């Protein structure tokens, strides 16, 4: 595969992973106003649960679903236990709380599963090259990742626009008090947003593990690297999460090919600072960035 094909493939696949993480963040931010640093932690749990179920002999889809459901429930539980009690607290308190939660979760994952690279048993999905034509090669894992991300985004976008629960979520994001005045159970809607965020992160974690033998720390770091994507897309935009993910993945791919792999992280975060400097609301963000 030549450079261009490699870049495009990496952009698409990594972009999907980042987009999955980012859309979860956006759901949480829109519904509850919390800037969550915990997506990386949920991603780790998605990966390690997936691994454990796979080791038990469950197939690809059952393992994926089971780990996704567990993290879905875990995130909702975390919201209920911790963040319902922090409603009304200043924003930096909730952000620090997510950092505390993430630190705790990550540590638990490492204690239980150890920080060694995790190898999935057998061959769930093959990494053998599938020739797509021209200079493009891919493999089952990459196709799977893109399919999962596409599915999630389709569900989220359609769900928000067309379903009753999506409508309620949009209203809660706009104005939680008014939503309550109109009979919406704000806390249930918020818990759902958190649960979905955990789910998308878990799917990203499992998909990542399918393609790369990685340790919990590596997975966690990838989770954090979604922030440049989130900020670029706009903290409160679902479409922005997708575009931001793809752009940051593109920057990463280009950097890897032309400069060197160790520079990618640096490049993404430099881009984050640039976004802050030039356009803090991101490409699609609607949230008012108020100057003081």
């Amino acid at each position, binding site marked *: 595969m030549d450079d261009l094909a490699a870049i495009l493939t990496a952009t698409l696949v990594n972009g999907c992973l980042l987009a999955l993480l980012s859309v979860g963040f956006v759901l949480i931010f829109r519904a509850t106003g919390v800037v969550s640093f915990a997506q990386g932690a949920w991603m780790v749990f998605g990966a390690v649960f997936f691994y454990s179920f796979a080791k038990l002999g469950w197939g690809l889809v059952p393992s994926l679903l089971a780990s996704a459901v567990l993290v879905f429930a875990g995130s909702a539980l975390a919201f209920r236990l911790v963040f319902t009690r922090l409603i009304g607290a200043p924003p930096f308190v909730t952000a620090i709380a997510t950092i505390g939660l993430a630190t705790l979760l990550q540590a638990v994952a490492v204690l239980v599963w150890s920080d060694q690279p995790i190898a999935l048993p057998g061959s769930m999905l093959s990494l053998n090259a599938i020739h797509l034509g021209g200079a493009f090669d891919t493999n089952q894992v990459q196709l799977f990742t893109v399919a999962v991300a596409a599915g999630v985004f389709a569900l989220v976008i359609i769900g928000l626009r067309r379903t*009753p629960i999506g409508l309620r979520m*949009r*209203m809660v994001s706009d*104005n939680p008090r008014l939503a309550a005045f*109109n*009979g919406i159970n*704000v806390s249930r809607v918020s818990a759902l947003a958190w649960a979905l965020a955990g789910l998308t992160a878990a799917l990203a974690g499992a998909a990542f593990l399918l393609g790369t033998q990685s340790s919990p720390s590596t997975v966690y770091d990838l989770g954090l690297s979604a922030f440049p994507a989130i900020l670029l897309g706009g903290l409160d935009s679902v479409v922005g999460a997708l575009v931001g993910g793809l752009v940051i993945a593109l920057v990463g791919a280009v950097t890897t090919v032309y400069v060197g792999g160790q520079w990618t992280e640096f490049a993404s975060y430099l881009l984050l600072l640039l976004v802050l400097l030039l356009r803090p609301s991101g490409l699609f963000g609607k949230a008012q960035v108020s100057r003081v």
Partner: protein
Amino acid sequence: MKTGRVARDEGADLMVAGLCVTYSTGAQAVSDVTLSVPAGTVVAVLGRNGAGKTSLLRGLSGFLPSERVRVTGSVRLGGRPLTGAAPQHAYRRGVVLVPERDKVFPNVSVADHMRLVGVGRPGDVAIDGFDAIARRWASPAGLLSGGERQMLALAMAWAHRPRVLLIDELSLGLAPVIAKRLLALVREQLAITGGSVVVVEQDANAAVSVSDHVYVMDHGEIVWDAASAETSAETLESAYLGGVPS
């Protein structure tokens, strides 16, 4: 939305006794308020800024736990207690608040607003004058004018067929002509959907003209409690200026 007159529904009698609303700062916005809103009537609650009118309505329709407000006393709807209920619970019991500011969701379309309350098509909204809104069906509510937003908020409330409709400062920011028209509409709809209405208003005269009973609040307390017919302009003036109305 159904039309046709509705029989008087005793389940809609709202009785309030000794209501106190205290904020987390310690400020007591409503002190020992007793009033009743019989089904089928329009009740006006008047008073200056800061008299506690909005807090009274919020005390009836419910506060969110994060607002950390203490509500004591007794609120009974159709005989069953409602004191301190959460907003979504009060809504289910039929107590609906149309707030003073932020009455609609700016980034949600008109269509979606009505979809929330089960109205699928603009033609289904049989309210006189709603067609102006119907023409903006796909537009985000943030682009509507003040009067249109008020109309949308009212339409949402009526679609739910509330037992007690609480309207906070309907006339605020609206041209007097439009406000009068909307208030008259409120009176008309009462006959159609049943229930009762509490209007909190700064425009005392407009409110009194559509209501059956008048309460005036000052410093969190009721200082005037009489039928509208017995409430003269002079009485209102003296109540607003702080003297004890005669």
